[in-house]
């Protein structure tokens, strides 16, 4: 069935600027699975940082630009749960015009976080891990509680060949990122992160997986600062051919 699937990558600002290797991994992975991938030009950011800080007119303007870019996309794949949530959950409400709103609803229906797309659309759950050894998973808040998705990342990780998946204690607790929260109340953000990383280290995992660029930035930044051996990676970086 995958032969006919087409998907557009919504790279997101953090993915574009800081984690391009994640985007590259996704494109190659999806192509190997027979998905025709394109990257509609003119993408910037989903507008979530503006929205969450209360700049809704500005976020709506960004959304109005983004929506038409994906007009012809069969599916839209997003490497971050939070950005996928923004598109699926908030874009429609930001559109005052009925026509745009309909288009936003349409886009919302066709937008998937990567793990969801793999499991629910491509129906591919079995991969070989690029990293051998023990891995664990952090539930990003927007994917878990925003999109109510705890399942698809675990479906993939539990079946991942060459890696041993262990649950992270309190995996559903926030990593302390929260966008501008991380610099508005950096001490609190860091205290929350410390708690998360202590749990990560207690698992004995060599690799911490997340499906959100924001969480990755926070957790990777904390791990590297404390000189930890644990690597924080995006799900896409782990998945090689079966």
């Amino acid at each position, binding site marked *: 069935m995958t032969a006919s699937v087409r998907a557009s990558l919504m790279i997101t600002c953090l993915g574009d600027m800081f984690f391009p290797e994640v985007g590259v991994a996704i494109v190659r992975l999806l192509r190997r699975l027979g998905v025709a991938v394109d990257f509609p030009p003119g993408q910037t950011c989903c507008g979530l940082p503006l929205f969450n800080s209360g700049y809704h007119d500005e976020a709506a303007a960004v959304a109005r630009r983004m929506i038409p870019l994906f007009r012809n996309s069969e599916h839209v794949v997003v490497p971050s749960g939070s950005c996928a949530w923004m598109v699926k959950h908030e874009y429609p409400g930001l559109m005052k015009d009925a026509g745009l709103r309909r288009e936003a609803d349409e886009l919302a229906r066709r937008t998937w976080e990567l793990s969801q797309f793999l499991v629910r659309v491509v129906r591919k759950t079995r991969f070989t891990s690029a990293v051998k050894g023990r891995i664990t998973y952090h539930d990003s808040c927007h994917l878990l509680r925003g999109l109510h998705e705890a399942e698809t990342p675990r479906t993939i990780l539990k079946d991942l060949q060459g890696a041993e998946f262990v649950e992270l204690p309190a995996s559903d607790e926030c990593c302390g990122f929260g966008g501008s929260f991380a610099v508005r109340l950096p001490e*609190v953000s860091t205290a929350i992160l410390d708690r998360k990383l202590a749990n990560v280290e207690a698992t004995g995992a060599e690799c911490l997986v997340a499906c959100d660029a924001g969480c990755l930035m926070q957790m990777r930044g904390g791990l590297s600062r404390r000189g930890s051996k644990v690597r924080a990676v995006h799900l896409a970086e782990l998945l090689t051919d079966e």
Partner: protein
Amino acid sequence: MSEPELATPLRQRAARALGDRFLKQALDIATTKFIDLRRDAFGDFPEGEALRDRARAIKEATLQSLDRYVDQLVDNIERLGGHVHYAATADEARAIVLDIARASGARMAVKSKSMATEEIHLNEALEAIGVTPVETDLGEYIIQLAHERPSHIIAPAIHKTKGQVAELFAKELKREVPADPEVLTRIAREELRQKFLQADLGITGANFAVADTGTVVLVTNEGNGRMVTSLPRVHVAVMGVEKLVPSMTDLMVFLAILAKSATGQKLSVYTTLVRGPRRAGELEGPEDFHLVLIDNGRIAQLAGPLREALYCLRCGACLNVCPVYRQIGGHAYGYTYPGPIGILLTAMLNGPRSVKDLAHASSLCGACVDACPVRIDIPRMLIELRKEVAEKGIAPWSERVLFKMLAHVLGSPPLYRLAGPIGRLLQRPFTRGGVIPRLPLFLGEWTRTRDLPAVAPRTFSERWSALALEADHAHTESAR
């Protein structure tokens, strides 16, 4: 009313709390325990989810016709011989209670735990007219001894370890006291017993008031609520007007989920139902009963952006699961109501200016929504408050300029495309092995404790044309 904690900015208040290792220990133990107890309570209760939906629906419907239910409640309480007072503001509410206290001739008032009386700063006002307030809930008793404020909606002394409580008691009683909760409770009980008998005035909050029966409902665990409502000559209950429920059947729905959400109990130890003053032939109960209904900003939100916050049952579940509350505790928030719901209530009671910084004291993780018995969408309303703070010019101009600039860049692909090259240029002096360990200005707030990833040598957008060719290449290969 001035809040002494607010002299220091939120960030410093939070940092101070983070540096208190006793607080950290106390919060960690208590919130973890509450979380586990709540999870177990609902785990054993399959009808819980449906009841939560039903409770929410009751709240929605009740608030639609609140005026009608208030009239009904007033009629019923008056028919029972009680008095109902309506206070538009905290000042009015305080004045009403003080009038009742003066008229009763009371010198001492025993109180059961009540956030509403905290909200109107009643204790200081009672002292000022020569009425000694005595808190009889163990947690409240502890913080009254310590001259502090509650730091949690249902566990006011959650911030204290048992060792600290023992020290406090020892200082007060001038004798050795072991750090044993049972002994500490016994001491408090002995101290309080006399007060119950002496006091002429009993002051309580109320968890609910039932409109069609005129019943005021108190949910407690220590039995002190029952003493406060039955021993003194006069009983005053103080309640936010939104806590009204239409019927006893509705009440049962809330009772079925309240204690589970709060402490993980199936029901609290005591559920006290008060219907007016003592009637002829009854052996106990007050001669005089008053209910003070407080508006204090609530009614305006019936049609306002914070409407859903009026559904709150004050169970405290959102505090226990909040990653921010769990780190800094209640006092750092600076107002009567702490935690995620507390930010909304603070805005409701004190206006949007009061939450300029507090509205941002959340990572918007949404754990509160899942824990809330009536599923209040707290993050949504925090975002609404941030919007108000931004749009009304309450946020600092520097922040507003920064976000407008960001919006400008994100709205323009040509400008956005420059971000990669400019970022790479600017980061050059700061980058070490692909990460940035230290940056100036507000980005330094990030790098003080975390490395920042450097802007990639080539952004994804810059790599796309080569990637697109890969596909064409593969396509030609496979076609060959």
